[in-house]
């Protein structure tokens, strides 16, 4: 089966420094993929390129058989390619309800309704999405009033409300408590099982990736160093060298 997303020869340089250096990547559907690597390995740049936050210098990206290399990010979202950010990013002054609602309204292309009240738009979908991440009871709160862990969950709910087929989660547990980290892990696992969404987790927490993912890509200095199941990666000599001194 053809991969859901594939990238060929992706290069992105910042003032002469190659952040990604001829990266080839295939993401098959319906598996949880982890992308790991030390700081500065080019993980986040790669996700920026794949989701359209940045455009590559050279190389190509196809999603579901179509070339999306030059497509702006909002059009990739419409085609089912979404993401969260490393630094949690929610609509701060909007309520939890409205945060998810805006994603639903956008997916249904109802943004240009000028005169109907928005209050009850897409209520059932919002309720479903917020229940999925356990945030329905906070629906009246403004996003800025939530704890960091709650904002992470909301961020995920907003992303899922775009109904992505492929969803990148950039360090979904950074900055949350150990308890919240485990909850997030469980949440991602159950979402992957319940939805037809393929998740790609970008992490430097290796243990989390090994616990959660079916397949792992290791990046180092802007290139793909190794790819395989968690077991294969743990046994890989080159990976051990990069993470020298760390328990892999």
């Amino acid at each position, binding site marked *: 089966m053809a991969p859901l997303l594939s990238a060929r020869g992706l290069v992105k340089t910042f003032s002469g420094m190659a952040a990604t250096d001829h990266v080839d990547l295939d993401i098959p559907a319906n598996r949880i993929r982890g992308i790991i690597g030390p700081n500065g390995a080019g993980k986040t740049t790669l996700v920026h390129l794949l*989701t359209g*936050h940045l455009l590559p210098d050279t190389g190509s990206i196809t999603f579901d058989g179509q070339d999306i290399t030059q497509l*702006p*990010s*909002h*059009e990739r*979202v*419409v085609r089912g390619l*979404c*993401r969260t*950010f490393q630094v949690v*990013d*929610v*609509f*701060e*002054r*909007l309520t939890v309800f*409205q945060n998810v*609602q*805006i*994603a639903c*309204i*956008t*997916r249904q292309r*109802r*943004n*240009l*309704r*000028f*005169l*109907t*009240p*928005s*209050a009850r*738009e897409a209520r059932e979908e919002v309720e479903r999405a917020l229940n999925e991440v356990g945030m329905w009871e906070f629906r009246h709160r*403004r996003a800025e*009033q939530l704890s960091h862990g709650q904002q992470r969950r909301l961020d995920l709910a*907003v*992303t899922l*409300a*775009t109904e992505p087929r492929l969803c990148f989660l950039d360090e979904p547990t950074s900055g949350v408590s150990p308890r919240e980290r485990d909850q997030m892990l469980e949440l991602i696992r159950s979402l992957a099982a319940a939805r037809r969404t393929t998740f790609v987790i970008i992490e430097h927490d290796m243990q989390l990736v090994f616990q959660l993912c079916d397949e792992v890509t290791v990046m180092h200095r802007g290139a793909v160093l190794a790819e395989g199941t968690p077991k294969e990666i743990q046994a890989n000599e080159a990976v051990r060298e990069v993470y020298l001194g760390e328990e892999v």
Partner: protein
Amino acid sequence: MAIPHNLLRGGVILLLLALAVAPFWAGNFGIYLIMQVMLLSLFALGFNLLLGYTGLLSFGQAGFFAVGAYVAALILLEVPSLLLGIVGGVLAAGLVALILGYLSVRLTEIYFTMLTLSFGMMIFSIVTRWRAVTGGDDGLTGVPRASLELPFLSIDLSALSSYYYFVLVVTILAVWLMHRIVNSPFGLTLQAVRDSAVRAGFVGLPIRRYRLWSFVIAGLYAGLAGALLAPMERTITPIYSHWIYSSEPVLASLIGGIYAFAGPIVGSVLFIGIKEVVVRSTEYWMLVMGIIVIALVLGFRGGVLGRFQAQQKGD
């Protein structure tokens, strides 16, 4: 302490009643002042759709106000039809906003602000230099307060108190319309773009397009305020296109509160009221006005109405 819904509704009804009988208690000068408040309110409501709801600070709104005022005046000087003049002025301002907005929304933050300031000043120089059409520094004089021609009905508005009712009705309709707009899916979309443009892009929103929509609506409201001003003052001068005039909706919105729908309206009442009192007592009115505005903006973070919202937070 949020304002209870019933109290708010009662307050609005009382206000409308007071406005409806204003010509009987306020006198000509009084209704002239009230009209100034209404026009500034429209001007500021449009401006605040950009600032408070979309997160874009425009310093060129006087340009669109002036386009509305001049086009309405030019039409009225040729054809004595009030509706034609007003509609023409509004549409012209909207068109200019569409063109300049298309160029401006490519930038954000301070760069957007500077660009709108420059475009505003461009309109100012056209208005002062293009003597044959705009009358240059002298402006346009003798703009008639033409009758309102409706099917089977012609209403004479030449008296200021009659014209007052026209402005009142148009203002109420425009405020109502804006209230619908900000509470619609479109209004929610603008607020999402305001809070995080990047995140808005990643829920699938083409953010520039929505910024442009907001810019055009702000331009239409500025144009409406300008168009209504022309028959009221009967004289239009380039001062209305100067960037100093662009600061009036900015200040009115800041004083009233940019995150409250009625903020720009409350701010307009305070702005015109303070100005009127201060101008009478000193020739250094700008200095005094400045101090009062600074005190209000610092004393009421988030505007006078923001005060009520802030306390709502902990519910």
